[in-house]
């Protein structure tokens, strides 16, 4: 009997905590208005003696990833105002984010990270890459990873959206990192959907940033059961 009571309490407790977790999710979608310019075939990648071998399909640029319902991928969405700094868990508790170099391309193309959180930079290729950050606020780094499966750890100290990463050996390799001083950020998936978890109830300003289509911000009210936000970014005018 006691045992039974204990189990049901545990199940109830778990359900309640799950609900409080999902209750504080900010979910939404970023869409692109208009038609995105066509991506370019990166023939230099396919033609490269080492990098080309790792691709049996033509490689294309990744500027506009547009999915279902005009959803725009690779958009960095983050809270710009309203976060209570004291309620934020320390960055050290978060697992390191991973930036991988694979087939002479960066994965992910766009990512987010907290200040002070570790960034693991990995070279999955059997070829030398140099990892060159090009920040405006943070300290720049530029080092080489000559060995396959080599890993290095770096971090950023100052919030900065977005920091460009590049490889000078392969002039087509770029990645973008959004650095913020709290955990409330996300990158949209291929259909433009995002989810920022664990955001307490309150009023916030949220911004969506895309490298090409610019940025838009919105005022969002988080209730106890979560919140919603939608952003519409604009594609360039077709006429040129």
């Amino acid at each position, binding site marked *: 009997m006691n045992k039974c009571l204990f189990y049901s309490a545990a199940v109830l407790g778990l359900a309640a905590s799950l609900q409080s977790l999902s209750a504080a999710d900010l979910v939404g979608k970023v869409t692109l208005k208009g038609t995105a*310019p*066509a*991506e*370019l075939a*990166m023939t*230099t990648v396919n033609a*490269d*003696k*080492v990098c080309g071998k790792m691709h049996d399909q033509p490689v294309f*640029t990744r*500027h506009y990833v547009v999915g279902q319902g005009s959803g725009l991928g690779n958009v960095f969405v983050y809270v710009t105002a309203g976060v209570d700094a004291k309620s934020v868990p320390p960055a050290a508790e978060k697992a390191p984010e991973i930036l991988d170099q694979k087939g002479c391309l960066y994965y992910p193309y766009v990512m987010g990270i907290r200040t002070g959180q570790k960034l693991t930079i990995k070279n999955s290729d*059997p*070829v*030398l890459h*140099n990892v*060159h950050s090009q920040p405006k606020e943070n300290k*720049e*780094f*530029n*080092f*080489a990873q*000559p060995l396959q499966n080599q890993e290095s750890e770096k971090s950023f100290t100052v919030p900065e959206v977005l920091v*460009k990463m*590049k490889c*000078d*050996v*392969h*002039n*087509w390799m*770029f990645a973008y990192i959004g650095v913020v001083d709290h955990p409330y950020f996300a990158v949209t998936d291929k259909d433009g959907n995002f989810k920022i978890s664990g955001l307490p109830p309150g009023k916030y300003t949220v911004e969506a940033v895309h490298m*090409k*289509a*610019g940025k838009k911000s919105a005022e969002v009210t988080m209730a106890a059961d979560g919140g919603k936000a939608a952003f519409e970014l*604009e*594609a*360039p*005018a077709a*006429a*040129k």
Partner: protein
Amino acid sequence: MQSGKSQAWLTRFLFLNAILTFFLVSLGGKVTSMGVGMSVPDWPQSYGYNMFFFPFDKWLGPGAGGVFFEHSHRLLASLVGLFSIIAALWVAFAETRFWMKVMAFLALFSVAFQGLLGGLRVVLDKYNLGMEFGLTHATFAQLFFSLVCALVLFRSNWWRNASPHPRAASLRPWILATCCIIFVQLTVAATMRHQHAGLAVTDFPLAYGKIIPSISPAAIASYNSSRIEISDSNPITASAVVLHMIHRLLALVIVGLIATCALKSRSILGSSHKITVYNFLWLGLVALQFCLGIATVLTGKSADIATAHVAVGSLTLMTGALLSMGCYRITSPRTALNLRPAPRMQSASSQLA
């Protein structure tokens, strides 16, 4: 004074150094066109190695990528440095003209300074000074190349035996002014290239469909969002668009000026005079350069075309600089008074010059 034979070899050696310098400038242009200036992030070492013992597979191997161009540029620069040391010493011993010795040592100090600028461009990149130093390095390279070529001109029989032509005095300011404008043009060009923003204006002959493109913030944002680039991913800025338009405008001015110089030279000196011949060659070079500039835009700044544009640009400046000096030679009062011609050279050197 050494024998005529050894004198001829000195001229040949200076000529060889000029050719190597041309390749060095072109290779430097290639490094910038490809945006691989930082592919070897340390200096004077290369990935921690002494640069002369940098492993072959990292330099020439299939995975070298941009490292090949950057490291080759450094090695070729060392060779030109070594040749410039030999040239300065050789000139010091073999030349009778004091100012010629000064020029040879000036070339030596220039190449050392150039090496330092190139190194600082790499080392100071992390303080966001890579662009400033890269730009200075690129601009100074043009002057160095002209200086190295001038040494060959001063060794030529034409220079030693030039006959005075006082009427050419009216031609002199035209060539000199054109030359200065070309230098300004090359500085503008180097700035455009070292911004690593790719083409600030992507169409030709119009600019974003207009004669004068808009540089309002909204227009700049739309240029950036409609641009799909593979490399050169710095965003376009308003100043980059303005610079690009200045470059186009100056190109037209320079073509007009060189054509004027060529026609003036023909009417003053006659069509068979060396100055006139080289003036028309200069016109041919700038016409080629104009076409390469258009091709750079239409190919979306293909690295090979952009590099050719840099190389022919340096030839255009050099030809102008040498023509200015040649013009000075035939109009200077010293030439007019020079009744005793300098000793004749061996025929080999006249072929080279």
